[in-house]
């Protein structure tokens, strides 16, 4: 019996399924708020998704105070300050994020600025620095990837210092997440593939990393099942509502899993690769995932082997080592298929990374908290070896 202590926390109400977003005003009133500061980006607005949101407010007694639609990829601290300023100017009383991880995290960070009544977001980076209750935050994800709708994390780019700042606090968890299949139908194939691989990486790393626990395990396996069933379908036919809902629920389950059992070396390397070479988060994860799994085979072959039946048909013969190899091969087969379907890169060199950057990425990655949870000890030299394999 494993008696290791674990904690599990997810206070987010989940409203998932057809027309889920129509329940937003009801949930706002339940939380005692009526005027929304909406955070989105140009791509999401251009895809017509804000009209779905506006429609949900009709006749509801709640209204939209302001819509900010200029969130940049990976967000930026200047954007966060601008959103907070608009929130004040328009007398809003809650945040509504409609978008991928970049919009959700911008809303989370603007919530810090408002709740702490500060103009210096930097002061609150790191863990558990928030001292005051945050404002209600409602989230409608438009990518099926980050799981940010159920996590206590926000990642914001400090564009002046050129670093990604992480904020973690239970107070950053959204109030409610609306998983509405309408919101991901317009997501382009390559972004669908990349964000879907981010979700799969959350589930797989959550399952084999050191903070795994029975609750996060069940969520991770559910996520893997849904993603394996529907990711390819979504990339082949973006309008498949059932497949889109599978992916959105899968990404959410993976988010709940990793928010409580954390991720490992794949994310540590992906964060550093994103920070230094601006490779999209999901693309970096997709490339690095099989190599990260291999890196952990010595310590975790048995656990990785348990993933095989959820990823592929299990070899009839052989032990843990063969089944773990089959699981890794299944991930490689999936990314190869995605590469054929939409051009998802398979190597770092195809994603804009140059060899001279690998050492800096390796050095940055060992300062990423995710490494704490990776089963295998990873030094800068180990990280460089993995990066060279994935180059």
């Amino acid at each position, binding site marked *: 019996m494993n008696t290791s202590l674990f904690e599990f926390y997810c206070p987010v109400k989940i409203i998932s399924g057809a027309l889920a977003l129509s329940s937003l005003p009801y949930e706002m009133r339940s939380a005692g708020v009526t005027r929304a500061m909406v955070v989105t980006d140009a791509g999401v607005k251009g895809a017509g998704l804000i009209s779905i949101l506006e429609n949900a407010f009709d006749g509801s007694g709640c209204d939209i105070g302001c819509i900010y639609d200029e969130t940049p990829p990976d967000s930026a601290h200047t954007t966060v300050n601008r959103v907070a300023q608009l929130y004040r100017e328009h007398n809003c009383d809650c945040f509504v994020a409609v978008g991928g991880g970049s919009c959700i995290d911008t809303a989370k960070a603007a919530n810090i600025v408002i709740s702490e009544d500060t103009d210096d977001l930097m002061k609150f980076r790191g863990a*558990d620095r928030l001292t005051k209750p945050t404002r209600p935050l409602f989230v409608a994800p438009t990518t099926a990837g980050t799981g940010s709708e159920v996590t206590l994390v926000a990642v914001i780019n400090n564009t002046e210092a050129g670093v990604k700042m992480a904020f973690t606090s239970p107070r950053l968890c959204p109030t409610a997440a609306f998983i509405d299949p309408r919101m991901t139908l317009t997501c382009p194939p390559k972004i669908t593939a990349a964000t879907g691989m981010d979700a799969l990486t959350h589930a797989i790393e959550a399952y084999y990393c050191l*903070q795994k626990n029975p609750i996060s395990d069940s969520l991770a396996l559910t996520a893997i099942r849904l993603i394996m069933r529907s990711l390819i379908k979504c990339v082949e036919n973006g309008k498949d509502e059932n497949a889109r809902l599978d992916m959105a629920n899968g990404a959410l389950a993976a988010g709940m899993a990793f928010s409580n059992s954390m991720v490992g070396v794949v994310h540590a390397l992906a964060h550093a690769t994103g920070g230094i070479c601006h490779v999209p988060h999901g693309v970096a994860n997709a490339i690095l995932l099989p190599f990260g799994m291999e890196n952990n085979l010595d310590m975790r072959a048995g656990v990785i082997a348990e993933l095989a039946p959820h990823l592929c048909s299990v070899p009839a013969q052989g032990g843990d080592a063969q089944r773990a190899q089959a699981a890794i091969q299944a991930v490689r087969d999936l990314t190869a298929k995605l590469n054929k379907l939409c051009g998802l890169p398979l190597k770092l060199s195809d994603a804009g990374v140059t060899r001279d950057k690998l050492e800096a990425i390796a050095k940055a990655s060992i*300062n*990423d908290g995710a490494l*704490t949870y990776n089963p295998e*000890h990873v030094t800068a030299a180990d990280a460089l070896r993995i990066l060279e394999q994935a180059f």
Partner: protein
Amino acid sequence: MEKLFLLDYKVKKKIVEISLAAVGVMFRKLSRRCPEMKAELAAWNPGRRFTLGILPDGPAATFEYTGAEVRYIGSGVKDPDVAIYFKNIDSALLVFTGQIGAHTAAIQCRTAIHGDLVHAMQMVRAMDIVVAYLMPGFMHGPLFKRPPQMGFKEQLLKTGAMLELPVGLIFNAAK
């Protein structure tokens, strides 16, 4: 399974206070003599302060990197840039008695980090070096994911540091 401590709180507090003081003595020594520690500290900004402590207001110790060494600047939380806190004294005892390593304490949510996460990772790596020198080799197994290789030079440094430890403890107790 980790053992439960049913010791009196005062006894537990004393064990933790002595352990923190020992960490302080060893940190200073290694920051001046150990090449591996020096390489780690090369990335630190002079003046960086860090605290190790027990919540809510248990024993704590604050250290500062001067640019040349890591100094123990006294017990208590003294305006640190980054702090690693144990959520309760039993969790701290599990670590200070060598039953679990620092990474296991983090994995089991027994610790809380306040401050910059990059600084915290750098602090944890430096602390791992301190633990390798403070704890006897036969106890290293559960304390590290990959137990450190300690050759003749390292063993020599360790012996010297352990001999100096009692004097250092008395000196730090005066702060």
